[in-house]
């Protein structure tokens, strides 16, 4: 039994069922005049069929007891949390501040150096990219609480 396949097929079945339900709501139509829900409805059915095959394969498959490599999931979770926090605070804090904090988080997550290393590199990156995007590429960047 392969838990990852069983879990992922479950998610795909839910997605397929959701597509069926939503397609019915917007009218499937019929073969002579297919409605807006026609295509997603049949896609939903096909997705459920494919997910069921993955599920059956997952149930039949033996779990391999291979060696597991040491991996750092903490880095992945921190990076994701940083990106989502960044996108939500981007407009409020403004480009310079939010980028500065995101860079500190990401650099600290990758390497442990002296306390001043991450803030100084982050400062250089956020300021140089600000100048590049704002003045050279003329990209609209949110001002935020710093008003520039």
């Amino acid at each position, binding site marked *: 039994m392969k838990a990852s396949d069983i879990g992922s097929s479950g998610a795909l079945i839910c997605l397929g069922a959701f597509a069926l339900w939503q397609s019915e709501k917007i009218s499937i139509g019929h*073969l002579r005049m*297919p409605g807006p829900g026609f295509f997603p409805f049949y896609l939903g059915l096909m997705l459920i069929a494919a997910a069921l095959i993955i599920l059956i*394969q997952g149930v039949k498959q033996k779990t391999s007891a291979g060696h597991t490599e040491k*991996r750092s999931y903490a880095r992945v979770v921190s990076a994701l949390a940083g*990106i989502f926090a*960044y996108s*939500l605070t981007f407009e409020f804090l403004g480009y310079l501040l939010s980028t500065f904090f995101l860079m500190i988080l990401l650099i600290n997550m990758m390497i442990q150096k002296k306390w001043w290393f991450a803030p100084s590199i982050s400062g250089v990156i956020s300021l140089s990219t600000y100048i590049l995007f704002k003045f050279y590429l003329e*990209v609209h960047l949110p001002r935020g609480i710093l008003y520039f």
Partner: protein
Amino acid sequence: MEIFNNVIYGFSVSLAPSNLLACFMGCLMGTLIGVLPGLGPVAAISLLLPITFKMTPVASIVMLAGIYYGAQYGGSTTSILVNIPGEATSVVTCLDGYQMARRGRAGPALGIAAFSSFIAGTISIIGIILLAPVLVIWAVKLDAPDYAGLFILGLTLVTYLASKSKVKAVAMAIVGLLLGTIGFDPIVGTPRFDFGFMHLLNGIELPPIAMGLFGIGEVLTNLEKLEPREVFKAKLKNLLPNRKDWRASLLPIGRGSILGFFLGIFPGVGAIIPTFLSYALEKKISKTPEEFGKGIIQGVAGPEAANNAASESTLIPLLSLGIPPNVNMALLMGALMIHGVMPGPLLAQEHPDIFWGVITSMYTGNVMLLVLNLPLIPLWVRVLKVPYYLLFPGIFLFCIIGIYTVNNSYLDVVIMGIFGVAGYLMRKLGYEPAPLVLAFVLGGKLEEAVRQALIYSRGDLGIFIQRPLSALFLTVSLVLILSSLLPSLMKRKKQTQAGAP
């Protein structure tokens, strides 16, 4: 004569200063991406999609195509010097390229990789110039049912050639098609799956999906385990192969070019499979097969020619039929569609500047890559030493700013983050993101073709098998599906027979 005039016109477009600069930037970035392990051309093209919005359609496609074939050049450098393929297409080059470097022949290995890529690129471009217009004449005659069949065949091939589970690839293609249905219905204009968000009424755009799945997803996977990179410390000398090297390499280059060119045209094949086939072919016909894997120059020349020829011929189905044969081409198609240009049989007629400009720019790009790459190899070696703690945060920042600037909307950043998580989980669970993106790009056109065909035939499904081309495409798709099921059915039959008393 007409072809000759078209080529001259193409060069007049591709040699215009802005397009030449775009080609140079694309080739340079492509080589850089190819050199850096862990970041492929798909991620790079995704990251740069938003930048192309401010460029002309010709310049944007010239640049993005340059990234794709430039990465094939760059990928060989890391394979030879670090034994880590910068690109999936350069995996085979590691086998003999790295061994050549260990024997003190890193220079000729890098040199022959660059020259064989150039020669293959030239052969491939001549092939494109001759074949693409012929396909266009044929494709103009296609109707809605034929297109539906062709799109289904394209998607079937992509899932059939998936390197992991085929069922999972099919599931991902269906998810991609479903994502493509978000927004206004293409026939009657009814809003679908918008859940009250204005932002979703026009559907999800390609950049947040591509950047999330490939850019963020790829970096997140790399973050789990930061591999140390040890660059081969040999001094690079004699980059130009000697006469003996040339004698040994010319035929493998020719064979690799032809193999790569023809295989690259087929949807789903891409540039990876031809490299393996070229290596296997060279080993099979060699008088000294035992030398393969120990640093033989034919093992570098053939596969390097094959990957470059294939990466360029993949443009044929995109430009002449409007069908992207792989995810890189799907991104290029997305970029063209963002500019309001629909690739397909009418492209050569309606936008000859794009059609011929892009084709001829590849030749300019190949010359640039050859001239630039050999003298710049010491620089690429230094690039390899850029620490991860600067590289990965830089990529994240580039993704975020790039996607924000498309619509000045933080929602796009959130969508990209969601697809970043999805891309990471998909890699962990053995699902390939490429069929999803390809299906997403083709989804709208496929739905339109299927529904138009059904309306036209008044609901008669027979229309898909009454038309010869549509019937042919669907039959080939069916054969492919059955052939992928056959091995498991045979295995099961054998097991049943073995278990019977």
